[in-house]
């Protein structure tokens, strides 16, 4: 159980990577942008990959009536996410410590993992809602109004995950360092659960 407790602590601490590294990255490349424009999504806000990328993405997007990319203070998520992540990391460390000293059993690890998974899914759901709004809630006075072959107005929701062609842009949306650290941390806590379970069995 000592080993499991250590893994639980390590796994929870990996979440803290999100305070330093982006959770997600979206890149936009086009023939006239040989150096693609890109945004890094942090839990506390969105930043350009290069210094002026956000300004230039907004500049390009205004032709099709997209909103400008939200500033950190324009979305409640960027205030709440850091609190949630900080709390979850702290909670995980506490549970891990208690496990290490044999005060709680391995089911607490799984409980933490379950809560984190639910929160993560909610976060993804929320992110997708935002992407949806960003790509479909267009200015009615947009300079360019494109339609699909079926005559319906075109929307520009970036993919939640993976690659998509949008007009002249190739859009790639993938997790970034902070996201990978978080996934790795969550897997570690799951491993902590199984190791804890195994040591319990041996103990019996």
């Amino acid at each position, binding site marked *: 159980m000592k080993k499991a407790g250590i893994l639980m602590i390590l796994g929870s601490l990996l979440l803290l990577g999100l305070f330093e590294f982006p959770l997600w990255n979206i890149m936009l490349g086009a023939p006239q942008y040989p150096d693609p424009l890109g945004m890094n999504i942090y839990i506390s806000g969105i930043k350009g990959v290069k*210094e002026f990328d956000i300004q230039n993405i907004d500049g390009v997007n205004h032709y099709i009536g997209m909103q400008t990319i939200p500033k950190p203070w324009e979305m409640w998520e960027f205030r709440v996410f850091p609190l949630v992540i900080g709390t979850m990391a702290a909670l995980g460390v506490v549970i891990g410590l208690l496990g290490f000293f044999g005060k709680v059993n391995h089911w607490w690890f799984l409980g933490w993992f379950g809560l984190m998974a639910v929160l993560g899914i909610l976060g993804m759901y929320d992110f997708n809602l935002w992407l949806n709004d960003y790509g479909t809630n267009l200015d009615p006075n947009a300079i360019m109004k494109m339609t699909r072959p079926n005559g319906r107005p075109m929307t520009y929701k970036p993919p939640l995950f993976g690659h998509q062609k949008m007009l002249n842009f190739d859009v790639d949306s993938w997790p970034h360092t902070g996201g990978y650290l978080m996934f790795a941390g969550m897997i570690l806590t799951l491993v902590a659960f199984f190791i804890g379970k195994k040591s319990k069995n041996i103990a019996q």
Partner: protein
Amino acid sequence: MAVMFSGCNNSKSPNGNRGALASTAAEKVYVPPGEHDEFYAFFSGGYSGNLTVYGLPSGRMFKEIPVFSQFPTNGYGYSEETKPMLNTSHGFIPWDDLHHPDISQTNGKLDGRWIFVNGNNTPRIARIDLKTFETDEIIEVPNSAGNHSSSFVTENTEYVVAGTRFSVPVPQKDISIKEYKGNFKGALSFIEVAPETGRMNLKFQIMMPGFDYDLSHPGRGKSHGWFFFTTYNTEEANTLLEVNASQNDKDFIAAVNWKKIEEYINNGGGTKMPAEYAHNVYDHSTHSAKSTIKKEVLTVDPTKVPGAVFLLPTPKSPHGCDVDPTGKYIIGNGKLSADLTIHSFDKMIAAIEAEKFDGNAYGIPILKFEDVLAGQVKSGGLGPLHTEFDGKGNAYTTFFISSELVKWNVETREVIDRQPNYYSVGHVMIPGGNSAAPFGKYAVAMNKITKDRYLPTGPELEHSAQLFDISGEKMELLLDFPTHGEPHYAAGIPAEILAPKSQKIYRLEDNKHEFAALGGDETRVERNGNEVHVYMSMIRSHFTPDNIEGIRVGDKVYFHITNHEQDFDVPHGFAMIGANNAELLIMPGQTRTLVWEPEQVGVWPFYCTDFCSALHQEMQGYVRVSPANSDIKLSWSLGE
């Protein structure tokens, strides 16, 4: 088929380089779409007053950098910010004859920080920044005329020199031209370069006898600390020079120990004399140039500094003056002779130490020809002019009269190869040619006459440059390409030194222009008497404001326009109907000012000239101009 081929060949140009040979040449100069050239080459635009930037080996032109001439393409010399760059003691001079570019060096190697060029007509030296490819500074050279033996730099860019081609009365005065001999002076100016900023300062002028100082090159390696200048008209004739300045069998190379003179000056030597000359500096944070008139110059009488200046006899009217990469040899080519003259730096020093002088000219010791001569190249060509080096022990000399490029070995002085030029070659350039470490892969010959090399374009033709592959034992002609103006001389540098440093935008937050409108809320229109200042911004695809009313006939309208883009290669233009100057081309983050003096009542449009986006054509606006006595209030708007 055979008949067709031979018929074809007969009617073709005399080089006969067709067929298989031509196709391998094509491969050597071919740079596939999207790929970059190996070298930047900076060609002087001669009488265009500009410097043009080409790629080697493709011969593609990338840019024309305005230096001494007004340039309507981007408004240089027309905009209020850049007009001071062309100020001189003679007033605003919007043209010059740009001759010799030279790239800054550190330890004798190209460092790619700046490129210096000379204005030949109204003596000036300009410094161009190689991050922005813009002219940053122009300093006028007083007491000079025909600033030809210029602008070459010493091996740590301590100095850039400006030798006068025409000697003149110093100070200028109303004097009979017949009194030239003994009364005119030739100033050799040493302009120090601040190591960090590149800022130039005319440190001293050596007042030489009234010869014509034609070309120059710095010593390097063991001869570092010396500068060499060719002279002609040592006869000091003042009329029909083609005859009267060609009487002496030998003219001179003036060897100047500038370190000795520097020491003399630092110890309080030299004489300050009144002089008026402009010093124009462009500031990249205010995006504006300032012109200052300087009032004084420090002059040095060379006879007062023993051991500083000597004259090396050199056959008849030498033109080129080239120092090999090791600094051991000084090559002076008598343009009216057939042979190349190679002086030895070591022998010169030995002769000076032994005080083996052959008289003097106005008190300056003349050395004996035989005592300084390292040897001569019996070339068989006519009219040798300029020499560059490949860094592998070979020299390449152009011959104007026999129109050829001759490769020879610097130590053995044997001719290795000769290739014809089409036609009448002046300078030759090897990247790094004026440095201790040339990049001896290509040589470019710059020809004065084009004739049948391209499709005819009426009587006026651009000059032709010719690219040679010099990587092998024999030179191979690869490419002809036209260059703009008179491609007098050029300087080349590997792309890998410059390209990574090239600036993409100006940062808006660093814009300290007095009249910049950095945010939308700073755009406005203000009246001050009959001056109206429009603080305007531009971004894809509109001007703020785009409608202005309350301007009157007789007003002087200053459009101060700031480009708010922060994206590489997104300039916007500004053109105002009836503005009697030019347009503006404004780079991302930059502010530029155009003056317009409306003379007719009406509603007059302005627009963006650079196709900036899909809505470029919509990037426009109007100015309403009312009669001079109108009381319509100033107003401006966007999106109303």
